[in-house]
């Protein structure tokens, strides 16, 4: 088997006395879409944030695209360009246009000229279907459009992996579809993705693997149909039936 593009091993993370990750192992193969589900507070976001070192685990290892993120000699800023992240609350820069949001890191970090950055930025906005909104500020865009700009901001850097933390849960229901459609297209283009979300329909249609987390541990994982229809653990069963009632 090829070397996985994400390899997190034996992660432990505390916030004060709270033990949030209790020895988590996660591997993601190239072009794989891994879906992470689990109750609130189970450590999904923390795990995801360890994968680009927005959080630093106390022990364990995180290797992404061959780069050891916990090695002190690693140039983290460089490494993070290969790891795109999309947040629940979009986190667009409100004082910049959509294009400005997408090109900031291209210009300041990837060292592209303004013209080259603008071209790459427009291409990224095109991919999320928002080229015509390039000059709009986040405040002038709908939630769904803002999240698509946030996706464009990440993919403009041509990452090897994309991390999504509940990308649709801050959206009005009628706007969810447009964001999922963009994620679907991204998946079809071969992007490796790790998605924390409760969008079961999307998971069934697009995920290769569903990981169920509870209380800082991975309880079980498998193909979407297995996890959703025939989970082997009682905790998984309880969680699935609870969210399907909604």
């Amino acid at each position, binding site marked *: 088997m090829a070397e996985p593009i994400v390899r997190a091993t034996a992660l432990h993370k505390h916030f004060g006395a709270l033990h949030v990750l209790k020895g988590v192992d996660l591997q993601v193969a190239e072009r794989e879409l891994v879906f992470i589900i689990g109750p609130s507070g189970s450590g999904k976001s923390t795990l995801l944030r360890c994968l680009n070192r927005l959080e630093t685990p106390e022990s364990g290892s995180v290797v992404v695209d061959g780069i050891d993120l916990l090695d002190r000699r690693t140039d983290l800023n460089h490494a993070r360009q290969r790891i795109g992240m999309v947040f629940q609350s979009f986190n667009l820069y409100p004082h910049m246009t959509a294009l400005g949001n997408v090109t*900031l890191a291209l210009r300041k970090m990837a060292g592209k000229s303004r013209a080259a950055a603008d071209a790459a930025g427009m291409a990224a906005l095109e991919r999320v279907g928002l080229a015509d909104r390039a000059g709009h500020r986040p405040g002038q865009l709908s939630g769904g459009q803002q999240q698509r700009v946030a996706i464009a901001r990440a993919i403009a850097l041509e990452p090897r992996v994309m991390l999504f933390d509940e990308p649709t849960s801050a959206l009005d229901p009628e706007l969810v579809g447009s964001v999922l459609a963009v994620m679907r297209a991204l998946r079809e283009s071969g992007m490796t993705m790790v998605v924390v979300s409760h969008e079961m329909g999307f998971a069934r249609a697009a995920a290769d693997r569903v990981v169920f987390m509870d209380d800082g541990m991975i309880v079980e994982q498998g193909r979407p149909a297995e996890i959703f229809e025939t989970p082997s653990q009682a905790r998984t069963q309880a969680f699935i039936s609870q969210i399907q009632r909604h």
Partner: protein
Amino acid sequence: MIETFFNIGILAQAWPIILAGLGNTLLLSLLVVPLGLGGGMLLALLSTLRNPWIRWPLIAWVDFFRAFPPLVLLIFLYAGLPFAGLELGGFTCVGIAFFLNTGAYYGEVLRAGIESVAQGQVEAARSTGLSRGQALVWVVLPQAVRAVMPDLLSNTLEVVKLTSLASVVALPELLFQARQAQSLTYNPTPIVAAAVVYFLLLWPVVRLLSRLENRAIAGRG
């Protein structure tokens, strides 16, 4: 009354002196506002470091210079330090006093601005590979300054008014010149004229400020 306070003849006589004073007040403001802003920015940036060895001295520093009356500070620098063999000159003393006093005020305003920017903004910037400094310069500070623009302006208004303190160390700014003219002419008209000049100078800023404040209130509602 009009002869005493609004004497046209005296005004004409004193006008060049007052005008020179206005020029110096503007120059002084152009010096001390950037100096205070620079000092304040330095303090605000230092306060973003969580290090307790920086944090506590910083809080003590800011508290001290906000509580210390700027007039007392200025007179101490100008008239006190020479006893320690340090004669700095009026201009330097004004520069130092404003750097210390208004820097502490600007620092608090800017710190509040920086803290008002959502943590997610920095996380988004860092997740795209921007360094801590780049995130600060391109993402946090522009939003921080915008958020506290009314407070920055109102502080600047205070600073320009405070430049009149420089008259006590004989810098020929507007108030000092007006008092010179007053003692030359034995008439208070120059003081009245200086008051009017101050008003005309600062009134547009006051207007701008209330427009900004109204907009902030409307934005919140």
